[in-house]
């Protein structure tokens, strides 16, 4: 059994979805999360507040520097994520397909490094 990060993409500055679309996606994601918990695929999930709420900490070389704003300079940011159990990539992609349809956004699937026994 492997674990995968399913990261939801969002683009800063893109127009906000309509009220109807937001309602639809909340309901759909909620139902999707229930399915994941029931099947045992759920490890953890959550939506993130926007990138302007982020803070970056650099603690290297004995110095600590704290900066406002997300790490990535790009407009593309993570909006939220699921961590799931899946036997292989096909299983993870199937979960991501349902997740992407539910939240109405692209979902990136990244495998976690295997923890050595």
């Amino acid at each position, binding site marked *: 059994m492997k674990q995968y990060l399913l990261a939801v993409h969002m683009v800063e500055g893109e127009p906000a979805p309509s009220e109807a679309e937001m309602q639809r996606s909340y309901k759909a994601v909620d139902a999707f999360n229930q399915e994941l918990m029931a099947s045992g695929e759920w490890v953890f999930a959550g939506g993130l507040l926007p990138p302007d709420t982020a803070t970056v900490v650099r603690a290297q070389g004995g110095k600590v520097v704290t900066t406002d704003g997300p790490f990535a300079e790009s407009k593309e940011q993570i909006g939220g994520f699921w961590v799931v159990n899946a036997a292989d990539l*096909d299983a993870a992609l199937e979960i991501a397909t349902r997740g992407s349809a539910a939240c109405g956004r692209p979902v990136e699937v990244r495998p976690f490094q295997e923890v050595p026994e």
Partner: protein
Amino acid sequence: MPAAEPGADGAPSGGGIPEGIVFARIFRESSGRAVATLARVFGDLDLAEDAVQEAFAVAIERWPAVGLPPNPGGWIVTTARHKVLDRLRRESTRSGREAQATALLGAADPEPEAEPVADDQLRLIFTCCHPALAPEARIALTLRLIAGLQTPEIARAFLVPEPTIAQRLVRAKRKIRDAGIPYRVPRDHELPQRLPDVLAVVYLVFNEGHTASAGDSLTRQDLCAEAIRLARLLHTLMPDEPEVRGLLALLLLTESRRAARTTPAGDLVPLADQDRTRWDRELIAEGQRIVRDCLRRNQPGPYQIQAAIAAVHSDSTRAARTDWRQILALYDQLAAIAPTPVVALNRAIALAEVAGPAVALESVEALPLDGYHLYHATRADLLRRLNRPAEAAAAYNTAIALTENAAERTFLATRRANLS
């Protein structure tokens, strides 16, 4: 038999040994099945491929000296399996890999059947063509693992530097391993989504061989032969899939015109001007038989329709006898299920024959194909027929600038020069 290329197969350079070429080809034909069998036995694609590569090195050294083994496929599997076992025994003494190596040794002990299970090859093909891999990676993996082409051959075929192909293969195999791409045949309900990717890879390989995107010669025959081999393999493994049949028929019918497509000097001869007596009658017969079969089963799809269009062309002994109305009707059917700009462009060529160049030109004006050289070549031809030479010349110029294939450029330049 192609002229011997020194070093291409590991044979000593300086003329090459024709025998070595033959052995390399025989090895190639069996290596795909060997990789498939060993991947099943060891559950590891990388291990299987490395082992077959090592077996290749032994074969190329030994076969010219002692002769071809009676069962080359069986010889490769046995030799490669021993290579894997040797490697696993060496690695099992290194800490950290003991458990894995022992498990694999245990799994590998029973002698695997020399003849692969049909599913082995399907598993391999679908894994190589997995949608999570980049398209170029799928092509390189398929040519390497299934067609057994060596890295230099793949590089030469696509006019890409060898290190690029090598890197592509390394990354692809790493992704298969790290992302956990499973080594299995898709289930029936997944096939509609997965099969098109496999067919697309085979089609891309054929297309590259049919009209090389760059370079001096119009075609690369070996690539077309490889693509047809892959299409035949798919047809053997999945005989009930309509689009698999359609693709094979399309490739056979397209390939049947090879001898007539170029002059001895390597210049392009368009379909309308080809000497049809030089078309391969056997390939046409086989292709048409498959098309008739597809029509009977009536489960149409894009490859089958394209094959039917090719079959209509093959029916006519002279260009003037071409049943353009039937071709147009087929393009209408194709456009309904695959409404792409390229289909619209090809449909326009048939439309010009049925309704005249003016109507056809109108149908292509708005197509978003500005970067496609055949779009401009088609427009140029229609403008030429409408007696608008200045605009035709401009379109030919754009077309020439967009293709790196020397034979195509020469052809287009000649057409431009012949404008009044």
